[in-house]
């Protein structure tokens, strides 16, 4: 419980380097690639939206990539995640293919939800991604239910449950933590505290200064880390995942981070200052991780350039795939409402 009392700033750089040196360079390179992929995926989706190529809305996690990729790195295909409305990073972290994610944005039949879900419902159940969720806190009890299945089935899988600071005042948050604790279920509750629930700041909405302090009420370990530090997130996630896998129950992990974009497309940034946004822009998690890898000699500049080219090619291919994919048929409007419906309902 000591850790939640410790405020930012972060742990000493030597500790963080230790975390990085525990992993082989290929793994770290892949993690950086995924972080850049998340960033470029969202920037490209935003652009496509501006150009009128896609409709609806989207919630961008630009600035939060370290938390998504750092937290999911210790997971395997046998583990589950539940995600949020700001969940593109979690999907990529859990191995989603940006092609099919783009296709979903474009509302195409080749998308993860066959164009029926859009940005807020991307899922890949076959690989343990139980889905993003349009309801704040909506995925939390579902995550605990998946963990109950895991326990009943005597598997050693774990469930990582992402949510934002906004969810920590929902009843679903409190009920979920309590259930996971009384039944000692393998859940890692990952709170991405990006400081605002739409426009309301954590200071105004939440009675405790660190959301991890909520863990005290549910008798589970609680940790607050610098969510913009890949190494810090990874370190805490590995610990929590190991704890859960050993059958020791849930952990509440709070990643303090910041969304550099607005809440959604309707946001006019009236509730925060330019200075605040600039300050967090300077703490960009991708720049930081890249610099750390270069300084540690785990990656060289040429590799970074190659990696960025790879990502650009993947984005381009993804956009092309999405645009060229077929749209769902109107005649299939009510398909998938029930298992038995294959074109017309009932």
């Amino acid at each position: 419980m000591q850790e939640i009392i410790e405020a930012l700033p972060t742990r000493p750089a030597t500790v963080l380097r230790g975390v990085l040196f525990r992993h082989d360079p290929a793994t770290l390179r892949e993690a950086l690639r995924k972080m850049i992929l998340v960033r470029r995926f969202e920037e490209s989706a935003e652009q496509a939206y501006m150009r009128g190529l896609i409709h609806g809305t989207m919630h961008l996690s630009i600035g939060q990539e370290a938390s998504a990729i750092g937290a999911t790195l210790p997971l395997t295909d046998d583990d589950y995640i539940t995600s949020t409305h700001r969940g593109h990073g979690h999907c990529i972290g859990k191995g989603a293919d940006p092609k099919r994610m783009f296709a979903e944005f474009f509302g195409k039949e080749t998308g993860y939800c066959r164009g029926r879900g859009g940005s807020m419902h991307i899922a890949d159940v076959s690989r343990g991604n139980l889905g993003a969720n349009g309801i704040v806190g909506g995925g939390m009890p579902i995550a605990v239910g998946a963990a109950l299945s895991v326990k009943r089935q005597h598997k050693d899988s774990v469930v990582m449950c992402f949510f934002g600071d906004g969810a920590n005042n929902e009843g679903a948050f409190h009920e979920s933590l309590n259930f996971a604790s009384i039944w000692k279920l393998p859940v890692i509750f990952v709170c991405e505290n990006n400081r605002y629930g739409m426009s309301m700041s954590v200071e105004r909405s939440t009675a405790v200064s660190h959301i991890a302090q909520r863990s005290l009420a549910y008798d589970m370990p609680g940790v607050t880390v610098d969510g913009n530090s890949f190494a810090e997130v990874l370190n805490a996630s590995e610990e929590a995942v190991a704890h859960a896998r050993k059958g020791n129950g849930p952990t509440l992990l709070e990643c303090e981070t910041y969304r550099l974009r607005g809440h959604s497309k309707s946001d006019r940034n009236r509730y925060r200052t330019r200075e605040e946004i600039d300050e967090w822009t300077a703490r960009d998690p991708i720049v930081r991780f890249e610099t750390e890898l270069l300084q540690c000699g785990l990656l060289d500049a040429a590799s970074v350039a190659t990696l960025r080219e790879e990502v650009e090619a993947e984005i381009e291919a993804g956009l092309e795939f999405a645009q060229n994919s077929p749209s769902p048929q109107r005649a299939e409007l009510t398909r998938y409402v029930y298992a038995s419906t294959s074109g017309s309902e009932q």
Partner: protein
Amino acid sequence: MTADVLENVQAAQQEQTQAQAHDEVRELTYAQAIQEAMAIAMERDERVFLMGEDIGVYGGAFQVTGDLYQRFGAERVMDTPISELGGAGLAVGAAMTGSRPIYEFQFSDFATLAMEQIVNQAAKMRFMLGGEASVPLVMRFPAGSGTGAAAQHSQSLEAWFAHVPGLKVVQPSTPHDAKGLLLAALEDPDPVLIFEHKLLYKSKGPVPEGYYTVPIGKAAVRRAGRDVTIVATSIMAIRSLEAAALLEQEGVDAEVIDLRSIRPIDRGAIIASIRKTSRLICVYEGVQQLGIGAEIAAIACESEAFDYLDAPVIRLGGADCPLPYNPELEKAAVPQVDDIVAAARRIVGGRG
């Protein structure tokens, strides 16, 4: 006789004996029938387990789980905290990941605390995810008035849920159907919500031994008749049968249809009956306005049955108020046998 023929004769004799045994079906209460269904389900399938408030040692608020805790243990009969949103959501998550939970709400009224998980998550998951997820979830809701429990423990909210694509909603009225529909619900790959009327828990009826299912979405004609069609749900099907017996003495031959399932709804059974009787009364306990009766009436109006109608449709539903505590007021708030008889007299008299 060849061996083959002999075998056939023996088989036929055996079948006959079984059929005779089947005729002498024992009687169980509605609550016992549900309990037996859950026991059979847990014996057949290790993925099945029960969750709910006080369903363990206590045996459930209405003693439906009874001694299942002693028989199957705490791992299969799981007491939950008083935490309906969380509990319902856990059931959704468990159902998505290879389990077959049966979640009991202590009172159907408490489902209002869990609407988010039922309506936004369980119901929509398959569709939102483009057919890639399944939520084979069973939820049980003790519902209805008549117990003196007042406004927050007596409601009939089934029509709320039946308004949501992705859910299935059933209302068994007999012990036979209570068992068969629960076992059918467990076979279903989609969420099935079972509304059980609290006044029916102690009612008795024949229940076959062993495993059987009653199809979801199929109405039952409980009494064939020529003069008026009464489409009823849950306990109102029982009351309608009582009303039909009284009407018979007056020379009115009522057909009583027990809808059994309100989503999906058996349109064919409703239409076929109206074609025969030309008169329709809908009887249900939920608030009359915007309830299941409106849907039944619409089926009559929008189909070929319309041409057969000889009188305006009558809806008999719950009064436009919360359920009151006073026993006389409580009775007055939902259709009783007398109300059904009076409505039938009116409609047969030609004036709806």
